[in-house]
């Protein structure tokens, strides 16, 4: 059995359909346990009190926002090189999910910033590069939406994602440098170097939970895109007939 056989939309559709319920249950379990440990079991922070608990949403979403962009760019590159339909579909399925995680990271960051820094928005290096990442996601989706032919759209968007992925480290470091120039050492960085296991455990659970959630949602999005793109093929019509 070769793994490339799963690149066929028909086989992938059936296989992912079996996978989704399990992944969904795993997501619910991980997020449930993670949230319970984070919100009720983990002790209050000696400096930040209870408000640090937003970290259990904020930090995993920020991780996901960058992770998903890389997944998107790699899938786009594979699609460009081998012209595989499935990786094009994967890249376009990633974009809205990644943009949502970026937005969640920004909003929770703002809500966390209010009690900690006294302002919703601080031109902190990480916040700013997260904002630019959101713009990059929006650009990707806008480009894809404005091209009618889905395959051409996927390839154009893949080029953009690759340019973006090269630029993200440059943007990140330039923003970091810019911030230290403008307000030296006045920003209170929250990320403490050592974190207590009782806080680390829910954080990691949430991070894994978000990853599994991402896989579940992306598989679901990919399945509906496959149906849409292959709606004129026989297997989709047979599928629709048996369903109705």
């Amino acid at each position: 059995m070769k793994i490339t056989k799963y690149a066929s939309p028909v086989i992938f559709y059936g296989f992912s359909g079996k996978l989704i319920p399990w992944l969904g249950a795993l997501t619910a379990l991980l997020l449930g346990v993670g949230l319970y440990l984070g919100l009720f079991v983990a002790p209050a922070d000696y400096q930040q009190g209870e408000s640090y608990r937003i970290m259990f949403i904020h930090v995993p979403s920020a991780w996901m926002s960058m992770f998903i962009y890389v997944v998107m760019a790699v899938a786009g590159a594979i699609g460009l090189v081998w012209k595989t339909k499935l990786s094009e579909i994967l890249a376009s399925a990633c974009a809205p999910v990644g943009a949502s995680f970026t937005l969640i990271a920004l909003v929770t960051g703002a809500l966390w910033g209010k009690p900690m820094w006294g302002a919703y928005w601080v031109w902190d290096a990480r916040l700013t590069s997260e904002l630019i990442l959101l713009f990059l996601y929006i650009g990707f989706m806008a480009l894809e939406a404005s091209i009618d032919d889905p395959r051409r759209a996927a390839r154009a968007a893949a080029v953009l994602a690759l340019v973006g992925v090269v630029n993200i480290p440059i943007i990140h470091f330039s923003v970091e440098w810019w911030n230290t120039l403008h307000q030296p050492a006045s920003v209170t960085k929250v990320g403490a170097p050592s974190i207590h296991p009782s806080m680390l455990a829910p954080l990691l659970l949430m991070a894994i939970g978000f990853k599994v959630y991402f896989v579940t949602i992306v598989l679901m999005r990919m399945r509906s895109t496959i149906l849409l793109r292959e709606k004129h093929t026989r297997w989709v019509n047979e599928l629709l007939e048996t369903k109705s």
Partner: protein
Amino acid sequence: MPDNPARSISKAPAPSLLRAAGCVFWRDLAVAWRRSADVLTPLVFFAIVVSLFPLGVGPEPNMLRTMAPGVLWVAALLATMLSLRRMFSHDYADGSLELLVLAPHPLTVMVLAKVAAHWVLTGIPLMLISPVLAVQLYLPGEAMGTLLLSLLVGTPVLSLLGSVGAALTLGLRGGGVLVSLLVLPLYTPILIFGAGAVASSATGIEAGALLSLMGAMLALALTFAPIATAAAIRISLD
């Protein structure tokens, strides 16, 4: 007008790579010369945007002086972005871009020639009129050299990165707004370093390190942007 690129697909031996790139470069300059309004609009836009800032924030010299590097650089960014459509859209509309793709020469080099022409028509004029506008914003005289130098190194990067966006949006509805959405986030590093270099030399700090970093970005963009642009043109012409 110099050699028509269409000739290279005839039976005659193809011109050398340098000669072909030179032809593309001079042709773009000649076309722009005959449509000079296209070239002047971004420059006038640059002047207007910079002149609007004092009207918006008040004529306070101290405030304008601290804002000057950022305002000049943001305006240069926007003016470049406005001119990006010119890079490929005429050639796309009349079909000569297709001939360029069919030509036996590597498309990356041809793209580089077109980007160079775009820079000569946008980046250099922007750089040349920037001191006049800088005086309007009370930028200290010591920073004038850095302003020119930072624009000299920075505007080619803007043209190179912009060429990717211009190629990706060829023939799309709402292309103009879309280009800005694609390109402006990518411009942030160059804005930070360009405005930072001018600001630091205005306060008497050596700006050499920042200009070197901009040079590094230019080297990076010069290497990779034409590849991405060529790929994008091929996708757009499909």
